[in-house]
């Protein structure tokens, strides 16, 4: 019950931050050099055409009026209409967010498991060769340009070995997958479409691998540092000095204490992964949310930029909220 109250309170506290984000992006996109109308009309448009287009998108209104209209739309759940495609921004997000979510969730899940297992192992073998190896690997991962890593995986996995499909699209169109959520692997599983499942999985492996490698590295370092701190901490030494069994020590005195220190750091790493997602989607032509938002930004598509910034900010703060709840669950000292 306390947790529910905490979550509600925190969500309410988000409103001013998100409102700040809305105001800021609204103003910023309008001072961006570049003009959305120019980009859709092309170089041969007359000033009259431009003015007509401007009026169609409400861009001839005073800025305060534009903002109030936008805000009014937000309250009713209307995110506006894309200047580029002329379709509803809300509908486009619905179409694009599923694939991105699938990619991110899978990558984070893989990264979390690997980071915890390897990090704790590394800390328990601190300052031996294995530990040094793990640390150096993590440092390399930490220094990895994800877009380049994606290219190298494509080079090796597709161009040289031919094991994986070409980096365009998320599923083979011949498999006739019925889209439900937009997350192809999930849709394939839900519609019991075996060939589509296989194809979606094959398409997923390289981007998931790319994303999880760059996410696992900082996470692994944090887990190792945290576990090492616990191993040197007084409570752990005390438990060792009282002769507790290795299993009891690991489960009761090391794991939870290690993880209790991590949620906020993990949230930060996950947040960073949103940035990496844009690049990874670009490299693999994933046609997800990140690529869509990027194009919006490049073409100065105001409603798209505003909406995508809002969605990203919202995801980011929600991740931190989840982290705080996880922290409270793991660490009894944290009051919420």
């Amino acid at each position, binding site marked *: 019950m306390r947790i529910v109250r905490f979550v509600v309170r925190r969500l309410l506290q988000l409103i001013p931050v998100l409102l700040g984000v809305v105001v800021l992006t609204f103003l910023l996109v309008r001072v961006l050099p570049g003009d959305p109308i120019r980009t859709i009309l092309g170089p041969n448009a007359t000033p009259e055409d431009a003015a007509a287009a401007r009026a169609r998108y409400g861009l001839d209104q005073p800025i305060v009026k534009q903002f109030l209209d936008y805000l009014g739309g937000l309250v009713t759940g209307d995110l506006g209409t894309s200047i580029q495609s002329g379709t509803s921004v809300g509908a486009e997000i619905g179409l694009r967010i599923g694939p991105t979510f699938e990619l991110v969730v899978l990558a984070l899940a893989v990264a979390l498991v690997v980071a915890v297992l390897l990090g704790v192992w590394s800390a328990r073998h601190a300052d031996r060769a294995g530990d040094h190896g793990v640390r150096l690997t993590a440092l*390399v991962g930490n220094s990895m340009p994800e877009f380049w890593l994606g*290219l*190298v995986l494509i080079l090796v996995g597709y161009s040289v070995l031919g094991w994986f499909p070409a980096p365009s699209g998320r599923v083979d169109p011949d498999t006739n997958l019925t889209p439900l959520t937009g997350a192809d692997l999930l849709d394939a599983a839900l519609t019991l479409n075996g060939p589509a499942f296989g194809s979606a999985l094959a398409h997923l492996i390289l981007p998931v691998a790319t994303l999880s490698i760059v996410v696992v590295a900082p996470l692994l370092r944090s887990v190792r540092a945290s576990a090492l701190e616990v191993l040197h901490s007084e409570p752990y030494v005390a438990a060792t000095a009282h002769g507790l069994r290795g299993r009891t020590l690991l489960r009761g005195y090391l794991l939870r204490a290690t993880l209790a220190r991590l949620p906020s750091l993990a949230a930060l790493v996950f947040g*960073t*992964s949103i940035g990496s997602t844009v690049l990874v989607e670009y490299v693999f032509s994933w046609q997800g949310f990140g690529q869509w938002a990027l194009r919006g930004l490049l073409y100065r598509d105001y409603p798209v930029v505003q909406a995508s910034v809002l969605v990203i900010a919202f995801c980011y703060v929600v991740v931190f909220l989840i982290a705080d709840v996880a922290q409270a669950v793991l660490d009894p000292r944290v009051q919420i």
Partner: protein
Amino acid sequence: MSETVVVGAARVGRFATVLIVTGSAILAVVALAAIFAPLFTGWGPTEIDPLGTLVPPGPGHPLGTDANGMDVWSRLLYAGRLDLGIAVAGVAVAVVAGTALGLVAGYLGGWVDDVLMRVVDIFQAFPTFILALAVAALVGNGTGNLIAVIAAVNAPAYARLVRAEVRTVRESAFVAASVTSGASTSGVLWRHVLPNSLTPVRVIAPLNAGWAMLTLAGLSFLGLGVTVPAAEWGAMISLGSPDVVAGRWWTSVPPGLVLLICVLGFSLLGEGLQERAEAKRR
């Protein structure tokens, strides 16, 4: 006398030294190669070989040429100037600005703290790279602008870091001792709080410089940072990316590898410093 029992010898510090030395050496090599690039190549960074584009590595071009017919090896060397220069300058600006803000917010507290931290909150409601994308799109892509982008997206983190540290230091007995000795606020800040609040900054800054290079390269890769024909690793990878599907590795793999190694230099240095700081704390 009975035999001696030896408990696992502590090797604290040796690995840290290895990390610091290796990291510094990598950075030194990359920096020197960039500065003295003309000594290692006959081609200019934007010089076009009229004889061919996408020439595979061979005698004339040790790493071949790219789609514009420019020598990859020579561009690889020259690119270090922009990459290192922008990242280091950007982080330096971020450190100075962030530290100043954090110091003021943390020590004064009250509404100054509230206002500054809310601004930081809004900045930090975005992943760094997304923020960099947005700001880069806003200010355009000159060298000075890119330094500003790197500084703007990183400064909030320093502000927060320093503020947290300042708030701890502010409560310490030696600050109380200084205040009760009649020292002025600026005196306390400058002489006691600041020097004792910088330890985490010193550790983070090198790591941050590495990430800043990745940010810069990422921006260039998407066309929002340095643009071809200027020599920059991210832009080179971008130019070479279509070749990958065709199995042409030399236009994109080498610049990425060099970028990776250079960032790794920063990471090794930062990790070593961190380990040393922790060893001191124990």
